[in-house]
């Protein structure tokens, strides 16, 4: 083990223990580790933005007047300058221009992307389960596939019914049909299973991370002790 590895190992061990001290309560060691992470990340991000974005995308084109890149770079320059006005109370209206531009583009992108990348493919996927080819298979009926399709369809309808029932309750409407109430209860079951699966995945990831860090510490001491 080299000296750098030893120092880095000790620092890593100390930082791990400092973060782990949060299990007792929020203390100064946890704060130091947290601020160290935030500070290092911010400094790294600033340098990276200057090197990867501002210099090549803004400064370099502006140093070439008359070119197409120069005129294109004026647009982000003006928007950036307008955005600075957000810092001042009087010029906050000017700062809304780039913000509105940004939000508008983001909303358009999200709507277009969701409709093309998630909504339509997922609907087609659900309908695909009920296609005659998928249900019948080659020569015999694929009962498991059929059950899977029914379960998926039932899950989609039940979850929609649950949200519909929840919306009605939020607006104070008490009367509802028995079918809708039953589907809503079934939707709760589907949602519970889904959130349970998500929670298990979260716990598994956390457990893997913990075991991985503990293994690294154990390996560090094994190497240090010559094991």
């Amino acid at each position, binding site marked *: 083990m080299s000296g750098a590895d030893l120092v880095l190992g000790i620092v890593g061990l100390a930082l791990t223990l400092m973060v*782990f001290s949060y*299990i*007792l309560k929020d203390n100064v060691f946890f704060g130091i580790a947290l601020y160290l992470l935030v500070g290092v*990340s911010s400094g*790294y*991000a600033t340098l*990276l*933005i200057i090197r*990867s*974005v501002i210099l*090549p*995308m803004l400064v*370099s*084109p502006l140093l070439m007047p008359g070119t*197409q*890149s120069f005129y*294109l770079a004026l647009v982000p320059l003006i928007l950036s300058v307008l955005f600075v006005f957000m810092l001042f109370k009087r010029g906050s209206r000017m700062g809304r221009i780039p913000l509105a531009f940004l939000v508008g*583009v983001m909303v358009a*992108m*999200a709507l277009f*992307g*969701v409709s*093309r*990348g*998630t909504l339509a*493919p*997922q609907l*087609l*996927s659900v309908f*695909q389960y009920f296609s005659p080819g998928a249900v019948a298979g080659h020569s015999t009926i694929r009962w498991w596939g059929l059950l899977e399709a029914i379960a998926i369809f039932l899950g989609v309808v039940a979850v929609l019914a649950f949200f519909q029932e929840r919306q009605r309750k939020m607006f104070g409407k008490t009367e509802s049909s028995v079918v809708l109430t039953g589907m809503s209860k079934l939707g709760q079951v589907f949602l519970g299973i*889904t959130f349970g*699966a*998500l929670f298990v*995945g*979260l*716990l*598994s*990831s956390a*457990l*893997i*991370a*913990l*075991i*991985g*860090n*503990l*293994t690294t510490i*154990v390996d560090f001491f094994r190497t240090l002790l010559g094991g």
Partner: protein
Amino acid sequence: MTDGLNMQTCPKCGKENLAYMTHCVHCGSALDEMFSFEGQIDLPDDALEESAATLPFVLDEMQSGAGLLPDDEAEFEPAKAKEDTDTEDVPDWLQRVRQRARAEEDATGELTKGIQSMQDMVDGEEKDDSESQYQDWIETVSEKTQREKAKRAERLRPSPLDDQGVPEWLRRIRALNPQDEEMLEEESVVDEWTDEALEDLRRSRLGDDYTPALLPDDTEAEEESEDSPEETEEPKIEHNIPEDDEDLLSLESDATDGAKTGDSQDTPSGAGDAEKDSADTLSEHTGFVIVGEPKLKPDEVFDTKTVTTEPAQTEPDASAKKRLREEEKEAILQDLVILRGQHEKVALLKSMIASEGQPIPNATESKPKKKDLSRLIVGLAFIFVLLLAIIVIPRHKTDSVPAGFVAAKNRFDIHLDALSETTQVLIVLDYSAASATELEPLASSAIQAIEAQGASWQAVATRMDSLWLSASLYQKAGVEDPQAPVYLMGGQFAMLNLALEANSEPQAASHSALSDEKPRLDDFDYVLLVSDSSLTIRGWLEQVSPNQPELITLAIVSQKEAVAIQPYFNSAQIAGFLTGAQGLSGENMVGGVNINVFRVGLMLMILLFVLGIVLSRETEGIPPVTQEVDE
């Protein structure tokens, strides 16, 4: 304050006063400019005396001489007398003119006479008009003064008294706080002064020889007030402007006396008492209740002061009255405290209205009072058992892999096996240091498989921390001379830009500043997403995949995001994926850790959950602490 106003100068002290002042505010002398009229010539006092002295002579002469003659004769006789005196000095031509004028009766002409008579008539009318205007003005001023007096009297009118002589406002306050009223009555009973006790007190303080000054009897005053109700309704208004010279002299003498005795201690306290008395009297009469420390004294507000007869301090009856008055004042102050409490409640209500919609702390939630070390003990025990498992349980290779998302893993393996030397793979790194332990073993194994198939690959990073984490990834994969990943800043914007640039002409794409480093998606056959966020994978599938349908998408995702990715695998938008808990074939590892230690950890967590459920049930048996809301 006086800018734009005409100032008048006091003739006595020479100081400036406002234009509408009738008396000088500095010396109190009368200011007559108020009553001066336009066109009137102000004569000095000497000139007035001189004119007054010459007035009898003029009157005598008018009575005895030409003043009482007819107009024609009056005009003729002085001219005649003057002619006699000036005959010698007058030239010849003028004498001839005068002779002719005497000879002709109407030498001035009818027209001149008519004009003269019209002029006299107009002067008489103007004189009558000015007199009538003066009378109107005097009447207007007097009416205005009477109205102001009536308003003042109404403002200072006392509130109705009951049989015991208690004003209405005091009865309201006592009704608000009956407890204080009872205490006040008890104290008044205890402190009731008898005539004998008061006499003893007087003798002990002042001696037997002292004879108190006679004070106006209250009964007489009441009788007088009954006889003249108007006087009681309108108290005498006292002002500091002397009305005559005697007042002025007395004012000056008072000022000098006050200056002489200003250092003594009695005068300020007496003045303070007088101010308090005036304030109390005012509040009694008007029913006004002043909350807190008044910024202006009532006399300053109303510019009036009721005349109160100052009783002798030695009179016990007066001291008893004063004490009773102070007790009443204390009772009022206690009620004012209640009013302040009401103000606080209003402020609280305002704050509650302002914080409407914000989450409020749970009333049943109570912080543990004593230090809870159970979490620390359980956490340390959990860590200790895991450390023990890591040290004790050996690692060995096995072909068994944990179940879960098997179909996705099989598809992933199939696509990896299908790679060839002509295949281009784009690896997108999008994970943080917290997920590095879970993802890097899977990603490094995938990179090794790609290189083993002879396929070429290039990496890009959509997160900053993935840039430096790529070094450890390449190290684990055993990549020689690795190329640093290209940073794609902007999230989904960068992804969309990458997809659209791939569809554009190469010449147009070359205008981009980072065109040399950024990859073109149309050059690649596969894209491998290494991410711990389902949002990044969804963004790629929404922004890039619809624009690049030929690009086959594979993914290595964190275990916590596997459920969110599964629908995209079912819809064939993702060809296959690996998750952290799946591990790789031939390795007794799951997400880079020993699978047996992982199982021990799962067992411990299940145990902790059961323990938590039991403890939470015991906690729920305790009735929650509810915060009583003071209504």
